[in-house]
């Protein structure tokens, strides 16, 4: 059973993704420096190596909770599975747009999809399937696919991307793919207006 202050600090360290300094902890709890030091010492003991699944680490800038390396294999197994689980439709659409049009900016992806592309782009970046590559003339970040992308889709090069006309006859129409995608996106945005 920990003291109330130690319990509060544990919760704060759990919630914060960045390390917290003793001053920040004092400010958030309204406790004095000495009390904070005492509660931190208490937590040092609670989270002594080997005691729990989490470790209290002192890093530049303060204290942070981290998972014990003991769990690393299990964590890889767990997260690796999600990493290679199927892409959501939004992610697949976004990835396809980057693959066929690269380099392409996020506003352009959003125009084609007719909806905001922030979340799928972030996930694809996180999964290393796309990466940033420079900026457009308007200053927007441009995205391209990565070599990991080629590997997981088993493509030798971008030339090997399938021809979309086998699923949609209109893909055969003359005109730049980019222009036609943008036109369809605007059309879509127009008809989904309420």
């Amino acid at each position, binding site marked *: 059973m920990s003291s109330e202050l130690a319990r509060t600090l544990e*919760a704060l360290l759990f919630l*914060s993704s960045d390390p917290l300094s003793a001053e920040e902890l004092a400010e958030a709890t309204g406790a004095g420096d000495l009390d904070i030091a005492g509660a931190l010492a208490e937590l040092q003991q609670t989270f002594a190596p080997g005691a729990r699944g989490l470790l209290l680490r002192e890093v530049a800038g303060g204290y942070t909770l981290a998972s014990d390396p003991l769990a690393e294999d299990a964590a*890889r197994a767990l997260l690796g599975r999600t*990493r290679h689980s199927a892409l959501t439709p939004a992610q697949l659409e976004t990835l396809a*747009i980057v693959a066929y049009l690269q380099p392409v900016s996020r506003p352009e992806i959003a125009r084609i999809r007719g909806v905001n592309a922030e979340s799928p782009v972030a996930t694809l970046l*996180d999964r290393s399937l796309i990466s940033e590559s420079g900026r457009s003339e308007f200053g927007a970040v441009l995205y391209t696919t990565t070599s990991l992308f080629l*590997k997981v889709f088993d493509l030798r090069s971008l030339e090997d991307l399938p*021809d979309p*006309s086998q699923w949609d006859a209109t893909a055969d129409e003359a005109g730049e793919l980019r222009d036609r*995608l943008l036109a369809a996106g605007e059309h879509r945005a127009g008809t989904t207006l309420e």
Partner: protein
Amino acid sequence: MGVAELEFDLDVFSGPFDLLLTLVLREEVDLRELSLAEVVVGYIDHLETRGELDLEATTEFIVLIAALLELKSRLLLPGEEIDELLELEPNEAAEELLARMLEARRYRLAATHLGELLAAAPAVRYREAPLPLELRRADLDDAPAGVWDPAGLGKAIAGLLVRPPQLDLSHVLVARVSVSERISHLRQLLRQAVELSFDDVVSGADRMTVAVTVFALLELYKRGELSWDQAEPFGEITVRAMSRPSAGTRA
């Protein structure tokens, strides 16, 4: 105070809003003679006196007034256009309206329930931190080759190329006059006079042309070519040119 208890003092009716609704539905107040603009103005007055915006009551009001407007617009349209506009028998229209009101009510009450759940949920927080870098990084060497089918990418692009079916509006609107036609008409008139009366613009025109002219007016307002004033509901609309296209750049 809810919308229901809101008091109105109108030409054809005075009393609370819920009674007005009941009377309209029982046809004891003729919707065609009821000025919905007055109802809206009355509601806005009420909002101003209260000095605060009750979003829930306002939403309710908007839903109700929209339903009344829809009913009234059906009533006002000449008989043969009802068939063209909505291929609905009066009883079908009533059924549809009923279903819609009941459905909206269901989710309004479900929303209230969600609000209660939210209020009753324990005051706990969840961690929203990104994974540590060493777990987040996908390693090229570790990545399994060919786990995903490239066909998925092609299908996704094909799907994005598809234009959704154009809504068939032919049964709704028999285009006797186009917005662009009305736009040029308005522009032409505004070249001759800085200020126009909307009544003059549409004098002698049929109902559809009047409606399309309003769209043209809105379009030109959006483009900053004109503005208008209307001192009171159903009052005269004065249309004013904002910037005349200069003779040099646009003939």
